[in-house]
C-alpha cells in the first residue's frame, strides 16, 4: 500500500496545477455544501425554536371547540377559569410553566395609519413571556393591574411612528361579535428577533384583554413550556378533561417538523447533484492521466501487474485527490459556517406568512452533516473514478506498449 501511495502521490505531482485545480473543484463544492447544510439547519432550528418559544409552546391546552384560525373570543371557543386549569397543569413535574393566553383580533390605528394585529392577553408575570420581556428595546413591560398600557413590537412602532408614551387607538372584535375601541399608552417596545412575527402582535395584560373583548374569565389556550420538550407526548396524556384538547408542539408544527426531519434527505439529494457536476472535473483529470500514461500502464502490465492492481493504483490517486479536496473543503466550509454562525446573516422580514423566521439566520454546523457530506464527497469521487481506473486496467499490454513510440 505504501508503494501505491508513493506512486499515486508522485503521479499527482507530475501535473501539480491540474491536480490542484481538480481538488479545488471538489473543495469548493464541499465547502458550499457544508455551508448550505449549516445554513439550512440553522434556519430550521431557529425557526422551530422561535415558533416554540413565541407562538406554539411545547403544549397547548384548548377548548374542544377552539379554532385557531378564527381568533374569535366567542365564549364557546374558550377555556373557562383558565388560571385554575393552568395552575393544575403547572403542578405536573415536567412542566416548567403554564399560563393562559387570550387571542383576539384587532386593528391598531394612529391618525390615518392603521394595521391589523393579533391581540394577545398574557399574564405579565409568567416566565413564558421571557422572549418579550428580555426583548424590550425601550420602556417597560406590562404589569397585571395595568388598564391602559400596551406593549408592541419594533416593526409596528416604526411603521406607525410610535414611541414609549405614545398613545394608539385599538379596535377589538368582541365576544358578542361587535367591535369595541379604546386608547392605550405604549409602555414598552420589544423585538424578539423575528420582525415577521413582531409586526403582527400587541400584548395586553390578560385581565384587561378579557374585559376589553368581553371574554370574561376565559382564555383561548393554556400555553405550556416543559423542562424537556421530548416529554410533550407523556405530559399531554397526563392532562385530562373532556372539555379540552391537548396539542403537542409536533402536532401544532407538522410542516416544520416534517421539513426538519427531511432536511437530511434534502441535503443529501442536493449534495449528490452538486457533487455529480464536480466529480466530472475529477473524472476528466483521471481520464487524461490514463491516456497520458498508456505506455506506463503497458510497462507495469508487462512487469506482471494485474488489472486489479492497476485499478488500485488509479483509485489511490483519486483517493488522494479527493482527500485533499475534502480537507480543504471542510476547512473552508467550516470556517464560513463558524464565522456566519457567530455574526449571522441578515435577511430581515422574509415576508413568509404562517412561519416564524428570525431576521438573522445563524448557520449551525452539525457533526453528522459534516461527516455525511465528507464521506459522500469522498465516495462519490472514488466511485466515479472507477471508470477511468477500469479503463486503464483493461488496456492490452501490447497495445499500450505500441502507443506512441
Amino acid at each position, binding site marked *: 500500500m505504501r508503494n501505491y501511495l508513493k506512486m499515486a502521490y*508522485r*503521479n499527482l505531482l507530475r501535473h501539480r496545477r491540474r491536480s490542484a485545480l481538480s481538488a479545488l473543484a471538489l473543495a469548493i463544492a464541499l465547502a458550499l455544501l457544508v455551508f448550505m447544510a449549516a445554513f439550512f439547519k440553522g434556519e430550521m432550528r431557529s425557526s422551530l425554536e422561535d415558533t416554540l418559544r413565541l407562538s406554539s409552546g411545547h403544549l397547548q391546552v384548548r377548548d374542544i371547540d377552539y379554532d385557531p384560525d378564527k381568533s374569535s373570543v366567542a365564549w364557546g371557543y374558550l377555556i373557562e377559569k383558565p388560571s385554575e386549569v393552568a395552575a393544575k397543569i403547572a403542578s405536573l413535574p415536567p412542566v416548567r410553566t403554564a399560563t393562559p393566553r387570550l387571542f383576539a383580533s384587532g386593528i391598531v390605528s394612529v391618525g390615518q395609519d392603521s394595521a391589523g394585529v393579533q391581540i394577545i392577553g398574557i399574564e405579565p408575570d409568567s416566565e413564558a413571556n421571557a422572549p418579550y420581556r428580555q426583548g424590550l428595546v425601550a420602556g417597560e413591560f406590562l404589569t397585571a393591574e395595568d388598564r391602559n398600557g400596551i406593549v408592541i413590537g419594533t416593526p409596528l412602532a416604526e411603521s406607525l411612528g410610535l414611541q414609549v408614551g405614545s398613545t394608539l387607538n385599538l379596535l377589538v372584535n368582541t365576544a358578542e361579535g361587535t367591535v369595541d375601541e379604546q386608547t392605550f399608552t405604549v409602555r414598552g417596545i420589544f423585538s424578539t428577533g423575528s420582525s415577521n412575527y413582531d409586526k403582527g402582535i400587541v400584548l395586553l395584560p390578560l385581565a384587561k384583554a378579557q374585559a376589553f373583548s368581553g371574554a370574561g374569565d376565559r382564555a383561548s389556550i393554556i400555553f405550556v413550556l416543559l423542562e424537556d420538550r421530548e416529554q410533550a407526548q407523556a405530559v399531554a396524556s397526563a392532562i385530562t378533561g373532556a372539555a379540552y384538547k391537548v396539542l403537542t408542539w409536533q402536532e401544532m408544527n407538522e410542516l416544520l417538523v416534517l421539513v426538519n426531519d427531511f432536511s437530511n434527505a434534502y441535503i443529501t439529494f442536493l449534495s449528490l447533484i452538486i457533487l455529480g457536476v464536480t466529480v466530472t472535473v475529477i473524472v476528466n483529470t483521471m481520464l487524461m492521466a490514463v491516456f497520458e500514461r498508456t505506455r506506463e500502464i503497458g510497462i507495469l502490465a*508487462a512487469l*506482471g501487474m494485474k488489472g486489479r492492481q492497476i485499478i488500485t493504483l488509479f483509485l489511490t490517486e483519486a483517493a488522494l485527490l479527493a482527500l485533499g479536496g475534502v480537507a480543504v473543503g471542510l476547512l473552508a466550509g467550516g470556517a464560513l459556517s463558524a464565522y456566519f454562525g457567530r455574526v449571522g446573516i441578515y435577511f430581515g422580514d422574509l415576508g413568509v406568512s404562517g412561519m416564524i423566521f428570525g431576521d438573522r439566520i445563524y448557520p449551525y454546523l452539525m457533526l453528522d452533516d459534516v461527516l455525511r457530506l465528507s464521506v459522500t464527497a469522498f465516495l462519490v469521487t472514488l466511485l466515479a473514478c472507477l471508470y477511468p481506473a477500469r479503463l486503464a486496467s483493461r488496456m492490452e499490454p501490447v497495445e499500450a506498449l505500441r502507443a506512441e513510440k
Partner: protein
Amino acid sequence: MEVAKVENVSRVYRVGEVETYALRNVSLTIQNGEFTALVGPSGSGKTTLLQLLGCLDQPTSGRVFINGQEVSRLNRDQRADIRKGHIGFIFQFFALIPTLTAYENVEMPLLLNGMSARQRHERVMELLKAVDLLDRKDNRPDQMSGGQQQRVAIARALAPNPSIVLADEPTANLDTTNGEQVMTLMTRLNQETGVTFVFATHDPRVIRYARRVITLRDGTIAENGTGPAN
C-alpha cells in the same frame, strides 16, 4: 532444458478487411542459457514473436510453452503471473517508470512478486552494482542518459530471476558506445548468471554478440543457426 517453445504459431492482425500474417507457422525452441538474436528486416515479425514468447500476446493459432507449461490458453491474470515470475523485458524505448528512481524501478517487479523489504533491498543493490549504477540509484529516468536508463531496464528485467529475458531492439536508440556497453553487459550477465537472453535486432554490430541467430523473413523462419559469438 527448454525455457521457451513455440509450436506452429501464427499471428494474424486484422485491420478492417485486411489480414496481415505477422507470423506464419513458426516453430522454435529456446534452451536454457541461450544468447540468441532474432534478426530480420523491419516488419518481419520479430516484435510479434517476442510478445508471444513473453505472454504479452496470444497466437491466432499454435501453442506457446514457458518452462514446459502451455501459456497460450491462459487468461489475462494468469499470463500476468507468468510474466511476473518468469519473464524479463527490455524495450527499445527505455521503458522505465518516470516517477520512480532507478532503485525503485528495479524494485518494482520484486514488489509485485511480494518479496520482503530486506530481500528486496539486497537484490536491488546487487543488481545496480552489476550494471554499475549504484551511484545513480536515487536518480529519476530523466536525470540519466539513454545508456544508463537501458542498464536500469536490464537490472529490472533480471530482478525477479526470470527464466528468460526478452529484449526488443535494446540498442536501437543508443549510440555505438552505449550500444556496445549494453551488449557487453548482457553478455556478461548471461555468462555469469546463466539467464537466457533473446534479443531482436537488425544491427550487424549487435548480431556479433549472438551465439545463435534466428532470421525471420515475412513472418517465417528463414535461417536458424549458430551465431558469430559461438
